């Protein structure tokens, strides 16, 4: 019985890890489809290499910073023990959490697409996943530095972020904003003859959105980390928020395929935080607002702020993440049909902290890299396209 429970726990969290690993393919294709044809290969290679660097960074450093266990260095034989104890559960838990950590560079990637150098970006990935992300992750999910205690004593409840509206998406989105600002807009995007480019392939973009959407159920549900903690509520709230996001994007975005396929993602980003406490009807509203928020904020970012965020990762992960964390404080309350145990004040506090740390951390990392090795392709390389300039091959061949 105990063995069975342990084994099923391993299976449970492994399924989560597999689903979130698959999401990385989703990130890749969302970017492939959105960028111009001459940058498709770069999108693909970047995501895959980033994933590898993230794993190493988190294995040796990041996981230790967040949870105190520096697995890769096998301190106190932690790695050796984890290999055989409890069917290797602790190893798979690392795997699962690593797939979250690796989402950070995958999110950033979509914002800085089409103009960033390759190896400097890998370097940034290393620092983000080794230091910036786990610093905040540990505060919120591992009680580090007494931050949660402080929030709880102030507001009566800790900062509630079940599956990472802020810890993952918010942090990713706000790091991306810092990176985008330091990198600058693509040549020709703004200015007197400035213009936007239509996506190279809507089917690939849609494929990416679908993979992300499906994998997200692992992201959210398996955040329970143990099978006996599984909550059908989390699954259905994710569904409802996803549906809300699609509906808002369909109607507010006037059937625009770019909006419609980001709709579910907006809803899912927003539901992460409160998926274990809000009511499915609340989740539907959270998703509707998130979908609408994305449509509005994307246009606002592009046209008013003139921030050249190629995939719209700041509105998507950064802003919908913030909305999600706040919404957990609202719809999680019993008054609104939630399961309670959340405080709006705590949500505000945790969110501000996360956003600030992410933006500052991201800014520092990218500023250092910018001023040392540089992060931007030359004008000629950008014009030629990252595929030829960096990878020396085009995405497809004429037939």
């Amino acid at each position: 019985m105990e063995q069975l429970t342990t084994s099923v726990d391993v299976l449970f969290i492994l399924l989560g890890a597999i689903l979130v690993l698959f999401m990385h393919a989703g990130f890749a294709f969302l970017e492939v489809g959105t960028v111009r044809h001459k940058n498709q290969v770069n999108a693909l290679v970047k995501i895959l290499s980033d994933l590898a660097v993230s794993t190493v960074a988190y294995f040796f450093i990041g996981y230790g910073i967040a949870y105190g266990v520096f697995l890769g260095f096998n301190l106190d034989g932690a790695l050796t023990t984890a290999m055989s104890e409890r069917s290797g559960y602790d190893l798979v838990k690392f795997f699962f959490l690593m797939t979250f950590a690796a989402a950070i560079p995958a999110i950033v990637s979509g914002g800085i697409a089409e103009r960033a150098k390759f190896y400097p970006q890998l370097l940034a990935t290393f620092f983000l996943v080794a230091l910036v992300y786990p610093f905040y992750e540990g505060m919120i999910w591992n009680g580090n530095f007494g931050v949660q205690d402080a929030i709880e004593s102030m507001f009566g409840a800790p900062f509630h972020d079940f599956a990472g509206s802020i810890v993952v998406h918010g942090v990713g989105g706000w790091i991306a904003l810092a990176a985008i600002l330091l990198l600058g807009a693509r040549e020709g995007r703004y200015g007197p003859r400035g213009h936007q480019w239509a996506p190279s392939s809507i089917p690939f973009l849609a494929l990416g959105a679908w993979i992300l959407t499906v994998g997200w159920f692992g992201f959210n549900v398996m955040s329970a980390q143990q099978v006996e903690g599984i909550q059908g509520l989390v699954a259905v709230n994710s569904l409802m928020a996803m549906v809300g996001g699609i509906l808002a994007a369909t109607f507010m975005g006037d059937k625009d395929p770019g909006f419609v396929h980001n709709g579910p993602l907006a809803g899912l980003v927003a539901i992460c935080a409160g998926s274990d406490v809000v009511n499915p009807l609340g989740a539907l509203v959270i998703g509707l607002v998130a979908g609408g928020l994305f449509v509005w904020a994307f246009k606002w970012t592009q046209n008013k702020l003139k921030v050249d965020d190629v995939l719209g990762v700041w509105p998507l992960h950064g802003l919908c993440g913030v909305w999600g964390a706040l919404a957990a404080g609202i719809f999680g309350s019993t008054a609104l049909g939630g399961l309670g145990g959340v405080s709006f004040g705590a949500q505000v506090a945790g969110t501000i902290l996360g956003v600030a740390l992410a933006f500052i951390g991201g800014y520092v990392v990218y500023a250092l890299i910018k001023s040392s090795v540089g992060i931007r392709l030359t004008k000629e390389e950008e014009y030629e396209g990252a595929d030829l300039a960096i990878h020396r091959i085009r995405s497809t061949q004429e037939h």
Partner: protein
Amino acid sequence: MKMITAIIKPFKLDDVRDALHEINVDGMTVSEVKGFGRQKGHTEMYRGAEYVVDFLPKIKIEVAVSGEVLDQALEAIMKAAATGQIGDGKIFVTPIEQTIRIRTGESGRDAL
């Protein structure tokens, strides 16, 4: 020997070929081109940004014909390609000084 170059609406290609076929003109070379003229393109929209697609897809037909059939061929093309709507296209006739069939080396009218 004359070269007839006709710019037409894409969906009229089959009609034009049929019309030329009827007067025994079967050889021709066709390519996809973008036309600019009085007929205007359209506007696309993606995530709130407008994209003006200011050209129209057109088909360019090149047919080499001997002097005698020229008028007949022009007539055939005109009839078959016309819709009466703006953007029906143009026909240009240019002189050919030499014509060769690569396979046989035949030249002039025999080369067609």
